[in-house]
C-alpha cells in the first residue's frame, strides 16, 4: 500500500523520523489505537483483553517453569520440587501459572457467554466467533496437557482416567488412546508428548488464532450491545418494534457508522478500562497463588490403590457426567456429548440467522445456553459434594509399633501444618505421602535432624533438639510406611 510511505518527510532527522519515513507509524497508530469504538461499549467488553493478558501471564510464568522442568518420569517430580524449593520465587511463579490457568478458564468462558448473549456471533462476525470457539477448546487442552507435567498422584491418575475415556469409543478408541499416550502405557512417552503439546503445539496454535481474532476485531470493529442495535435498526426502518428481517449490508453500514461516530476512542478511553480490569484480575491470581499456594501431591505411584483421583475443577462436570452413562455407553457421555456441543458452537452463526440480537428475542439459543450452563454448574457441584473429604482415615491400621510411635510424634510436632501426610496437611513443604519412593531412610533421618545440612534454603526447623535420634528414627520409619 502506498499509505505505508507518508506523503511528507518527517521534519526531525531522528530515529522516530527514520521509522516514520519508511513505515508511516503515525498512520498505523491512528488506525489501530485512535480508531473510534462504537457507542454503548461497556465493561463486559474488557473480557477479551483480560483473556489476552492472562495468556501473556501464562506464557511468562510457563517459560520460567520450563527453565527448571525435566519432562521425564525419572525427574519430572524432582524438578518441580526443585523449582518450588530452590528457585527464588519458584513457588509463587508455579502458583501464578496454576491459578492463572483456572482464571483463564473462567474468563474465557465468561467472554464466550457474553459474546453469545449479545448475539455478537451474527453477521458479519462469524469468523471471529469460530476463532473464539477454537481458542475456547484450546484453553481446556492447555489444562488437560498441563496438569500431567508435575507427575504427582493427581497428574498420573487424572491422566490415566482422561486417556482411558478416549479408549471407550468403539472402533477407533484404542487407536486414539495409544495416540494420546504415545504407546499402550501411560509413561515416559506420554509425558514427553503432553509436554511437547503443552509448550510447543498449543502455544503456536493459540498465538496464531489470537492474531486472527485480534485482527478481525480491529478490521471489523466490535459489535454494538444487542438492545441498542435492535432498537437502532428498527428506528432506521421507521418501525416501532424490533426488526423482523436481517439487516442488509447497507443498513448494517449505516447503523454501525452512526454508533461509531458517537463512540469513544480506543486509546486511551477504552484501553484504560481493559488495563484496570486486567490488573485487578492478575492481582487476584497472584493473591490466590500467595494465599493458597499450589498443591504438589506425592510422586506418581502406579501401585497406589488408596488414591482417589479427581480432575481439575473445570473438568469435574465431565467426570460427573460419566456416572450417568452405563459402561458400554460411556463414550456417548464423554466424547459424543462434548463433541456435539462443539459442533453446535461452530454451527451456531449458521443456524441462528434471525434478525434480532437481544437474548430475549432469541429464545432457542438463550435456552440452550442457560441449560448448558446450569448443567455444567450442577454436575460440577454434585461432583464436589461426592468427593471424599480426604484420603482414607484409618491408614494407621497396619503400622508396626515403631511406626505408631512415629505417627504420634508426627502429630505432636504438627508436621501437617506444612506437609501433606495421609492425604491432608499444608503445602509449605513437599507432601510426605509416598516419600519412601523418593528418599532413603538415611536421607529422611538426616533431613529431619538438620534440614539445612541437605538443603541450605530449607524453611524447616531443626528437630534435634527437641527430638532425640531415636524419636527421629521412629518418625522416619513411620514416614517410610506412608503410601
Amino acid at each position, binding site marked *: 500500500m502506498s499509505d505505508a510511505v507518508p506523503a511528507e518527510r518527517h521534519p526531525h532527522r531522528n530515529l522516530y523520523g527514520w521509522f516514520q519515513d519508511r513505515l508511516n507509524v503515525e498512520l498505523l497508530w491512528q488506525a489501530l489505537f485512535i480508531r473510534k469504538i462504537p457507542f454503548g461499549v461497556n465493561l463486559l467488553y474488557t473480557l477479551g483483553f483480560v483473556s489476552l493478558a492472562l495468556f501473556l501471564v501464562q506464557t511468562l510464568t510457563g517459560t520460567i517453569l520450563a527453565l527448571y522442568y525435566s519432562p521425564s518420569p525419572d525427574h519430572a517430580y524432582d524438578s518441580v520440587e526443585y523449582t518450588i524449593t530452590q528457585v527464588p520465587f519458584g513457588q509463587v511463579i508455579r502458583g501464578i501459572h496454576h491459578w492463572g490457568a483456572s482464571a483463564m478458564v473462567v474468563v474465557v468462558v465468561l467472554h464466550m457467554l457474553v459474546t453469545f448473549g449479545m448475539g455478537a456471533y451474527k453477521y458479519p462476525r462469524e469468523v471471529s466467533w469460530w476463532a473464539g470457539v477454537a481458542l475456547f477448546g484450546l484453553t481446556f487442552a492447555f489444562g488437560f496437557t498441563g496438569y500431567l507435567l508435575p507427575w504427582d498422584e493427581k497428574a498420573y491418575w487424572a491422566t490415566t482416567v482422561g486417556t482411558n475415556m478416549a479408549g471407550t469409543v468403539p472402533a477407533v478408541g484404542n487407536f486414539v488412546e495409544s495416540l494420546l499416550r504415545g504407546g499402550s502405557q501411560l509413561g515416559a512417552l506420554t509425558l514427553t508428548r503432553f509436554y511437547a503439546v503443552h509448550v510447543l503445539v498449543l502455544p503456536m496454535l493459540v498465538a496464531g488464532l489470537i492474531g486472527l481474532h485480534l485482527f478481525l476485531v480491529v478490521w471489523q470493529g466490535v459489535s454494538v450491545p444487542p438492545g441498542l442495535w435492535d432498537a437502532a435498526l428498527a428506528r432506521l426502518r421507521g418501525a416501532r418494534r424490533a426488526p423482523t428481517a436481517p439487516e442488509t449490508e447497507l443498513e448494517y453500514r449505516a447503523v454501525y457508522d452512526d454508533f461509531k461516530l458517537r463512540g469513544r476512542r480506543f486509546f486511551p478511553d477504552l484501553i484504560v478500562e481493559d488495563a484496570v480490569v*486486567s490488573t485487578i484480575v492478575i492481582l487476584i491470581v497472584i493473591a490466590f497463588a500467595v494465599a493458597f499456594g499450589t498443591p504438589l501431591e506425592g510422586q506418581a505411584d502406579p501401585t497406589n490403590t488408596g488414591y482417589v483421583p479427581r480432575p481439575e475443577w473445570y473438568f469435574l462436570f465431565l467426570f460427573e457426567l460419566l456416572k450417568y452413562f452405563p459402561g458400554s455407553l460411556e463414550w456417548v457421555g464423554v466424547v459424543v456429548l462434548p463433541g456435539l456441543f462443539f459442533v453446535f458452537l461452530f454451527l451456531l452463526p449458521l443456524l441462528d440467522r434471525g434478525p434480532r440480537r437481544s437474548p430475549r428475542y432469541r429464545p432457542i439459543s438463550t435456552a440452550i445456553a442457560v441449560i448448558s450452563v446450569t448443567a455444567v454448574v450442577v454436575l460440577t457441584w454434585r461432583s464436589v459434594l461426592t468427593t471424599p473429604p480426604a484420603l482414607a482415615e484409618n491408614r494407621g491400621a497396619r503400622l508396626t509399633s515403631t511406626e505408631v510411635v512415629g505417627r504420634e510424634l508426627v502429630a505432636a510436632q504438627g508436621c501437617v501444618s506444612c506437609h501433606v501426610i495421609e492425604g491432608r496437611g499444608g503445602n509449605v513443604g513437599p507432601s510426605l505421602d509416598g516419600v519412601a519412593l523418593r528418599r532413603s531412610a538415611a536421607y529422611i533421618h538426616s533431613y529431619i535432624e538438620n534440614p539445612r545440612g541437605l538443603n541450605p534454603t530449607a524453611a524447616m526447623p531443626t528437630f534435634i533438639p527437641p527430638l532425640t535420634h531415636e524419636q527421629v528414627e521412629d518418625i522416619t520409619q513411620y514416614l517410610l510406611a506412608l503410601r
Partner: protein
Amino acid sequence: MDGPIPAAQTSRRTFLAQVIGACVTFVAALLGVPALGAAIGPALKRDESQWLPLGSPDAFHEGQPTGVNLTVVRRDGWIESTDVKGVWVVRQPGNQFTVYNGRCTHLGCAYSWQPDQQQFTCPCHAGVYGLDGHVLAGPPPRPLDALLTRVEGGQLQAQYRDFQLGTPEQAPA
C-alpha cells in the same frame, strides 16, 4: 472529523494514558521481578562446598595414616548422585590433621600406606610419598593434594575436592 479538542478533553486523555502506563508498569514489575529472579538466581548460585564427616579425631593415631571412604553427594539441579571417594587421614603432632586426596598426583591411581616402609606408594608407576605428602621417588609432579579440614562438634571434617592430575601446580579439576 472530531473538530478542535477542548483542553479539558486533552487533560482527561493524558490522565487516562497515565493510568494505563501505571497499570502496565505495576503489572510488569509485579511479574517481572519474580520472573527475573527465578531466571537468574540459580544460574548465579555457586556450588557450596560440603564439610564431610570423617569420624571422631580420636580414631586417628599419629604416625598411622588411615584410609577413609567419603560419600560425596553431588547435586546437579534436581539430580543427585553419590560418589565414594577415598582419602587418607594423617594425624600430625599437636592435634593437627592432614587429609590427602586419595589419588596419586601423577595419573590418579589409588595409592596406599606401607606401614613397614613408612611411606605412601602408588602401585601404577611406583610413585612414593612421605608422611608429609612430599614426593620421595617416582614420576609424581607434585606432593599429595591436601584437603581443607576442621574439627567441629567433636568430629573431624574435610571438604572433598579433585585437582588436575599430572601438573606441577595444584589447580582445581
